[in-house]
């Protein structure tokens, strides 16, 4: 067996046999799902709590506007009693709050007089639902006062959903864009997480070899570059194993949890679907699902898959070689901070650009430029590709990435060669620069 595969095998086996690793692998999805279930359970508890809101409507304009439902009971008070008395009553009855509407003729005056009294600060969702209903009602009222026929106004409202079509005849819609964003965002985020988690793991494994002083024994039989690559590949394979277990275990647990909390989860999903539908102003559920499926089908799937693999591997190798170099440059983990910052900044920048700019304008200048810069290109390009990026751009970006990757591995190997045998010397940037010339 050659050296590289021996190193890979050892790195992989030590990682997956490590107790902390095993515990993390099994516990993480359990904790995650448990949290998820807990949040679901708590929010179902919360929403099932009944609240009573008293309404003192002295204007007489909003009677019957609010209808009680399972969660909130609206209690219209006698318009004759004073505000002070109403407040006292609400407090003694321990109602959730009191909505007060003043007695005015003019709609604007009524609007200005509306107040909500409560013991604690009221829930934001309740207030905004009250506001939206009141706004609508009072707007209608004002329109009526101005002599506008509400029925006609309603009838004349027109909804627009612009059908999109490229010059080549590819049809798309807003839901397409959402699906594209979801795909790109997922890919970019996955890469980001992968780099941070497993980059750190590589760094720690390099530091471990230094602190346990085995490095000189190893390095007298293996070339540093082989050790470096073996470490990166072995740790990545362990990472992929962990991810696969997470997906399988998490998926299984998710099924079980949904089965147990079936109803509440179902409701949540219904709500989410409703929200999505509202946001997209799309017709009923079945149709929406169909559109989503179509949108996925419309994605450049082959391109996406190949690009995902290449950019993921390239980006991961680029960053993990830097992590390994940091590990070699320091004596212990506490010294790594000063070197970690410059690595994390482009990575975080990539995610920000991806999230804010690519959504706004996937082919704009900022997005395009950042999808070429090697340190941000893996994340940004992965987010752009679902929107259709010309192959030449992908190739140029990939080429730049590979070029930079070769450079960083050379750089890392150089630092690594010198650094792994340096003890006690506090590494500074100046020192590292000197090492490059050794």
């Amino acid at each position, binding site marked *: 067996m050659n050296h590289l595969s021996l190193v890979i095998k050892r790195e992989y086996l*030590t990682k997956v046999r490590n107790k902390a690793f095993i515990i993390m692998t099994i516990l993480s999805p359990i904790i995650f799902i448990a949290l998820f279930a807990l949040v679901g359970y708590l929010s179902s508890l919360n929403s099932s709590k009944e609240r009573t809101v008293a309404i003192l409507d002295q204007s007489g304009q909003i009677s019957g506007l609010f209808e009680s439902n399972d969660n909130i009971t609206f209690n219209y008070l006698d318009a004759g009693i004073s505000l002070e008395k109403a407040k006292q009553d609400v407090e003694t009855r321990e109602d959730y709050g009191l909505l007060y509407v003043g007695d005015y003729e003019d709609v604007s005056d009524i609007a200005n007089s509306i107040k909500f009294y409560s013991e604690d600060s009221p829930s934001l969702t309740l207030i905004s639902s009250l506001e939206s209903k009141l706004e609508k009602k009072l707007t209608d009222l004002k329109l009526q006062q101005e002599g506008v026929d509400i029925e006609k106004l309603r009838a004349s409202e027109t909804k627009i959903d612009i059908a999109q079509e490229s010059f080549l005849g590819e049809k798309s819609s807003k839901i397409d864009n959402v699906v594209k964003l979801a795909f790109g965002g997922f890919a970019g985020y996955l890469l980001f997480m992968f780099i941070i988690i497993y980059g750190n793991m590589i760094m720690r494994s390099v530091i471990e*070899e230094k602190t*346990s002083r085995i490095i000189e024994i190893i390095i007298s039989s293996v070339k540093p570059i082989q050790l470096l690559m073996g470490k990166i590949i072995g740790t990545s394979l362990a990472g992929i194993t962990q991810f696969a277990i997470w997906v399988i275990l998490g998926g299984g647990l998710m099924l079980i949890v949904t089965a147990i909390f079936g109803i509440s989860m179902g409701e949540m999903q219904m709500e989410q679907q409703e929200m999505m539908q509202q946001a997209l102003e799309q017709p009923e559920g079945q149709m929406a699902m169909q559109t989503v499926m179509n949108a996925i089908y419309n994605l450049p799937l082959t391109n996406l898959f190949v690009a995902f693999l290449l950019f993921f591997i390239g980006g991961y190798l680029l960053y993990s070689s830097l992590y390994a170099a940091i590990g070699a440059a320091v004596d212990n983990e506490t010294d790594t901070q000063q070197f970690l910052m410059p690595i994390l900044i482009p990575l975080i920048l990539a995610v920000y650009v991806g999230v804010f700019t690519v959504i706004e304008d996937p082919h704009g200048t900022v997005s395009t430029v950042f999808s070429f810069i090697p340190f941000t290109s893996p994340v940004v390009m992965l987010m752009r590709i679902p929107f259709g990026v010309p192959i030449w751009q992908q190739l140029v970006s990939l080429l730049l990435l590979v070029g930079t990757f070769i450079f960083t591995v050379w750089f890392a190997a150089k630092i690594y060669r010198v650094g792994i045998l340096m003890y006690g010397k506090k590494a500074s940037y100046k020192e590292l620069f000197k090492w490059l010339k050794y």
Partner: protein
Amino acid sequence: MNNILVADSVSKNFGDFRALNQVSIAVPQGSIFGLLGPNGAGKTTLIRIINQITMPDSGRVLLDNEPLLAHHIQDIGYLPEERGLYKSMKVGEQALYLAQLKGLSRSVAKKRLKLWFEKLEIGDWWNKKIQELSKGMAQKIQFVVTVLHEPKLLIFDEPFSGFDPINANLIKDEILKLRENGATIIFATHRMESVEELCDHIALLHQSNKILDGKLQDIKRQYKTNTFEVGLVTDNEQQLTNILKEKFEVGPADFKSLNDDLKLNIKLKNGESSNDLLMFLTTKGQVNHFNELVPSASDIFIQTVKNS
């Protein structure tokens, strides 16, 4: 004589610091070669160059008359001064891994490891983790791993540090046995007692330069002072001392003796032989002790380092 390893004016700089300056050594086949020098003299750098861990800036190294190549790694066994093992890995597994990195197949490595573990009475450690072992125990395993692939050249950098006297002796015997079986040994240290016992050749490095090398015997001869340690019983010690002082350089000596001797160090002048001195002494009293003072490696070490 056939040299297994030759370093030919090897130089190495680290930034502005010159770690090795035109150092040449020749290690004869089958010898135990002491690479000596104070801390920071460049011993470890030279050893790392031989192991291809660092590359020399200039000069070349030949192993078996061939310039160093990647495959030569398998011909060398190296026990570094800064040594350790993976703490959380099991002893057997770890030894197998390191042996395989040196080019042994898994099955051969396993067979040899079992033999060595039996020999050093550490067979029951196979499934223990390194962190459960003491430092000395871990050192034994490192030693086994170093010699397991039966290299023709063994390099030990301060091999006895961390061993108790019993285990140090055990290891010393094993080193001598390895030499009997045909291995050549380079032995880097600044502990002179072990040099005296083991080495037949030495090279002395000081401040990145080689300042002395050759057969230990020859060097000692070169550094001898013609001084003899003498113990004799005489009636008039004061008178004898005065007579001797006229003829030779005389100083007080200190050694253990059963008799109430007059103890002196007597240095001969050029051209005088030890027999002349002895014959003269026998006429003056009962000679119980007559011994040439051979310079110890330690004396030579200190003297050359001071003079350079």
